[in-house]
């Protein structure tokens, strides 16, 4: 299946391992990723905090690019980009006046025809393919699947591909990769999202609570599907430790990396070396990856 690909700024910057790992597993999942031509920033929370119209117009430009390219649906691996693109599509579809404004602002004839999918939705659709490609099942790996805020809510925007209060798609993907999802309580709590830079204290408080809960539930690693969640939970562990809020080392894996490992892909190819918290505890497990391959 060919699907439009909107990497978003983070996947080209802070979280390029997400991009790398997704591209690494895509062929095996039968996904042909067609990057949206000359895509631009979705505006993230800054745009819609400043101007509603801007918050819709920036993502709409990308949808328009995809539309011009003949792309029917687009996947945005970053949860924030996904939320912005999906919200823009949803709002334009429900509001003819807004649609008119957007067409004027973009100065092109935009039909709002491109469907927006989250990475979870796409991976859920590829479950059979994942199952058949797993060669190194992540046996005995206990994972805490972390959804954060924007992957499954609000349903009006997501279209309800998963339950907003009791989701299951990430667990299903991890199970297909042979891992064991733990039952824990903070998988829908916010990691601090956009305040990462401007208010580290909040991010430390929220992130530490998440890490502790996952640890208490016996998780060996937390699985995420969002670059922001990743940096708040991975990069910030050091700051948490400095502030005495957290004293462990919890590897944070992208869902795409989990699937890649189970397919026997090289840890380096999956960008696991780019993480701040070492992932050896996961990658050096005897079952999944042959020894010596860890970079």
């Amino acid at each position, binding site marked *: 299946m060919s699907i439009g690909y909107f990497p978003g700024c*983070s996947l*080209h*910057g*802070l*979280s*390029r391992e997400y991009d790398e790992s997704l591209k690494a597993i895509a062929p095996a999942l039968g996904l042909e990723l067609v990057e949206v031509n*000359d*895509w*631009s*920033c979705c*505006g993230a*929370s*800054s*745009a*819609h*905090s*400043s*101007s*509603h*119209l*801007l*918050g819709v*117009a*920036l993502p709409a*430009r990308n949808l328009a*690019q995809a539309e011009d390219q003949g792309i029917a649906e687009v996947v945005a691996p970053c949860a924030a980009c996904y*939320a912005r693109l999906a919200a823009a599509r949803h709002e334009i579809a429900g*509001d003819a*006046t*807004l649609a008119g404004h957007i067409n*004027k*602002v*973009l*100065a092109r004839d935009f039909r709002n025809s491109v469907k927006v999918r989250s990475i979870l939705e796409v991976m859920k659709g590829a479950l059979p393919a994942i199952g058949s490609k797993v060669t190194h099942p992540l046996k005995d790996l206990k994972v805490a699947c972390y959804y954060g*805020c*924007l992957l499954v*809510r*609000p*349903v009006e925007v997501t279209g309800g591909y998963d339950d*907003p*209060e009791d989701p299951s798609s990430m667990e299903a993907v991890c199970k297909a990769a042979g891992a064991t999802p733990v039952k824990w309580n903070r998988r*829908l*709590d*916010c990691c*601090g*999202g*956009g*305040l990462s*830079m*401007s*208010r*580290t204290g*909040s991010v430390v*408080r929220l992130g530490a609570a998440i890490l502790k809960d996952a640890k208490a539930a016996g998780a060996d690693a937390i699985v995420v599907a969002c670059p922001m969640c990743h940096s708040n939970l991975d*990069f910030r562990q*050091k*700051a948490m430790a400095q502030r005495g809020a957290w004293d462990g080392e919890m590897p944070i894996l992208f869902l795409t990396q989990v699937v890649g490992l189970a397919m026997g892909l090289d840890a380096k190819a999956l960008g696991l070396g*780019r*993480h*701040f918290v070492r992932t050896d505890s996961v990658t050096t497990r005897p079952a999944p990856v042959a020894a010596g391959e860890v970079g």
Partner: protein
Amino acid sequence: MGSHEHSHEHSAAQPLATRIQHMTGLNPLKCYQCGKCSAGCPMATETTTRPHDVMRLVARDQLDRLTDADGLWLCLTCETCTSRCPNGCDPARTMDALREILAARTNGKNHNAIRAFHRSFLTQVRNHGRLFEMGLIMSYKLGGGPMFADVTTTPSVLARGKLGLAPHNVKGLEEIRRIFEACAAQEDGA
């Protein structure tokens, strides 16, 4: 009757709730102050104006008091409040609308650090079409943000190949600038 009007035109004489309704299509007066939004808000322990307070101040037409409301600027836009509100009030969207109304106001405390961040962010997008993270960090600091607390870690970020040093410009920059201008014109025309 029928579909809600979506309009960016509002007169100052309009009650705030009506203004918000024009902007969001949702009636803030539906809020019955149950507090479920604030109960789940991850920032509720750090703010004094929680989502239900915001809804209350909107209903009471207290735009001035909202100017200083920390909750507006510390909101993580995590949508927890919105997805659990029994009445479909969408406090998160209401706060977006309020930030938009208040963007023009510079007086008051209103959390310059966060506004500075948003400004820097949008400047990056406007100038390059994409986020240039190094540039963001620099301009954010210059723009009034507190010293990047973890500046010591920046080299390690670079070492992991995570930050690009040179900005990457989008080809359709013209269009991006047009979007910004058109949006600004719309706001001004309001």
